[in-house]
C-alpha cells in the first residue's frame, strides 16, 4: 500500500510539474515520473521477499526477484542520460521558455 501511495504522489507531482511552462520544471517532472515507474517495476517483482538472490545461498521462496532490479538499473541509466541531455537543451537558448511556442 505504501508503495502504491508513493507512486501515486510521485505521478501527481510529475503531472503537475510537466504542465508548467519552463523546461527545467518539465525535466523535474520527468525525474519524478521516472522514479514512479521505477518503483512500479520494483513492486511488479514483489517486495515482500527480500533475501539476496544467490543460488545455493538462500532458499528460492525467500529470495527477491532479481529481474525487475536489473530492469530498474537499466531504466535509471537511460533516464539519467536523457535528463542530462534535456538539461543541456534547457541551458542552450536562454529564455525561449517564456515565448509562445507556435
Amino acid at each position, binding site marked *: 500500500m505504501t508503495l502504491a501511495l508513493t507512486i501515486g504522489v510521485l505521478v501527481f507531482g510529475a503531472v503537475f510539474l*510537466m504542465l508548467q511552462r519552463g*523546461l527545467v520544471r*518539465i525535466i523535474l517532472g*520527468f525525474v519524478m*515520473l*521516472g522514479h514512479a*515507474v521505477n518503483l*512500479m*517495476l520494483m*513492486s*511488479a*517483482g514483489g517486495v515482500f521477499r527480500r533475501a539476496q538472490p544467490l543460488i545455493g545461498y538462500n532458499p528460492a521462496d525467500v529470495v527477491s526477484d532479481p*529481474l*525487475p532490479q536489473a*530492469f530498474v538499473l*537499466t*531504466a535509471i541509466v*537511460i*533516464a539519467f*542520460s*536523457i535528463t542530462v*541531455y*534535456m538539461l543541456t*537543451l534547457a541551458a*542552450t*537558448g536562454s529564455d*525561449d521558455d517564456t515565448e509562445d*511556442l507556435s
Partner: protein
Amino acid sequence: MSAALLPLMVAVPLSAAGLLALAGLPPWLNRVLLLAPSAGTLVASTVLLWITRDGTVLSHNVALWPDGIAVPFLVDAFSALMLWTTSLLVLVCAAFAIAVGDDRTSYFCPLVLVLSAGVAGALMTGDLFNMFVFIEVMLLPAYGLLAMLGSLRRLRSGRVYVTLNLLTSTVFLAGVALVYGAAGTVNLGRLAGAAADSSMVAVGMGVVLLALSVKSAVVPVHGWLARTYPSTSPAVTALFSGLHTKIAIYAIYRLYAVVFDGDSTYLWIGVVVFGATMVVGVLAAVGEETTRSILVFHMISQIGYILLGVALFTELGLTAGIFYLVHHMIVKASLFLSTGAIEKAHGTGALDRLGGIAAREPLLAIAFMVAALSLAGIPPFSGFVAKLALVAAAFQAGEWVVAVVAVAVSLVTLMSMLKIWGGVFWGVAPEEADRPVHGPHTEAGSTPVLVRPEVPAAMLAPCVVLAATTSGIGLGAAVLLDLGSTAAANLLDTSTYVEAVLG
C-alpha cells in the same frame, strides 16, 4: 547462416560507432566505417530473407540462464524484410548525408551507426524489456542528430521531440512493469496469447501499445511529428521517417499478433483510429506551404493505412499492411531525399520560392514523380499494389466504410503531390533563383558571383536508387507479396515464433 551470428548485426555497428567516436580517424575512414556496417547488414538480411522465405524462424538466446532467462534474438520473414529495408535506407541516407556534407559534423557518423544498431536490435528482439532498451538505443542518437543539423528551429523542435519520446518511453516502461507484475515474465514466447487469458496482462499490453501508437504518430497524438521532422537536415528527416515511426509500427504488429493473438474484439478501435489518421493527415497536408511539411503530414496519413492491416488481422490484411510498410519506407525516404536535394541546392523548400526545376533537373524530377505517383497509388508503382491489397482486405473483412475512406484519401494525396509538382517542378523559376555565391577564396566585401544552383550527381544517386526500388517492387510485386504473406502467416500462427523464442 548460423543463428548465433544474429547479435552481430547489433554488435558490429555499435563497435564501429565506439571506434569512430573515440579514435580521431581521417574523414574517408569515417565514411567507410559508416557505410560498411549498413552494407553488411543489407547483405546479411538478404541471406536471412532467403532462409526465412518458407516461414523458418531463426533464434539465438544470448546468456541462456536456467529458467530461460536470456537475451533472445529472433528473425522471421517479417523481421528479415524490415532489416533489409532499414539497412537499405540507412545506407542510402548515409550516402546522401555524405553528399550534402552532413557527415563533417562531428559525431554524425557514430550517431547514425548507434541508431542503426538500435533499429536492428528492436527488430530482432524477442523480449519486451529488451525492446524498450533497443528503442532507447535508437532514440538517444536521434536526439543528438535532431539538435545538431538543420535550421535554428531545430533546438525548439528538439525539445518537443525529446520530451515527447521520454514521456512515451516512460509510459512504455510502466506498461512493461504492469505486464511483469501480472504475468511474471516479459519474454514474448511466454507471453504468447497471455492477453487473451488474463485481462491484467491485456491492460498492461494496452499501455505498451498506447505508447507505441504515440511513437508511430497515430491521430490524435500526431502533432509532434509534424512539428519536429521538417526542422532538421533533409538526410536526417529521411532517415527518421524510414526508421523511427516504422519500428513502432513493427512493434505494434508483433506484439498484437503474439500477445493478443490478433483478438478481433478490438477491431473497431483500430478501424476508427486509423481511418481518422488517414483523413486528418492528408487534410492537414493540404494547408502546408513547404515541401517537407507537406510530406510529413502525408506520412501521418500513410501510417493509418499501414496500421489498418493489423487492425483487420486477416491474412490478406496483414500481407497488405506489411507490403505497405516496406513500400512506404522506401517511397517516403525517396521523396524526402529528392526534395531535400532541391532544398540543399536551392536553399529553400518553400513552394512559392521554387519553380521550373523539371527543366533544369530532369532526372531528379523523374525520381520525384515516380515516388510521388507511387505514394498516391498509381499503377505500375508499388503504391498501387499496396493500396489495392489493403482496400481488398478491408472489403473482405466487411469494413467497406474504411475502404472507401482509403480510396478517397489517396485522391487527396495525389492532389497534394501535384501541388508540390506544380509549385517546385513546373512553372518559371522565380527571380531570386540564381543565388549569390561567394567563391571559395573571395575576401569579404567582394562582389558575389551569381550562379545557377545545381543538384550534384552524388545527391541525385540516392533518390534515383530509391525511386528505382519502388518501381521494381511495383513491377515485381509478386515477390514482395509472397514474402509478405509468409510474414503474415507467421503472425497469424505464432507457434513457430513462440517455440523459437523459448529455444
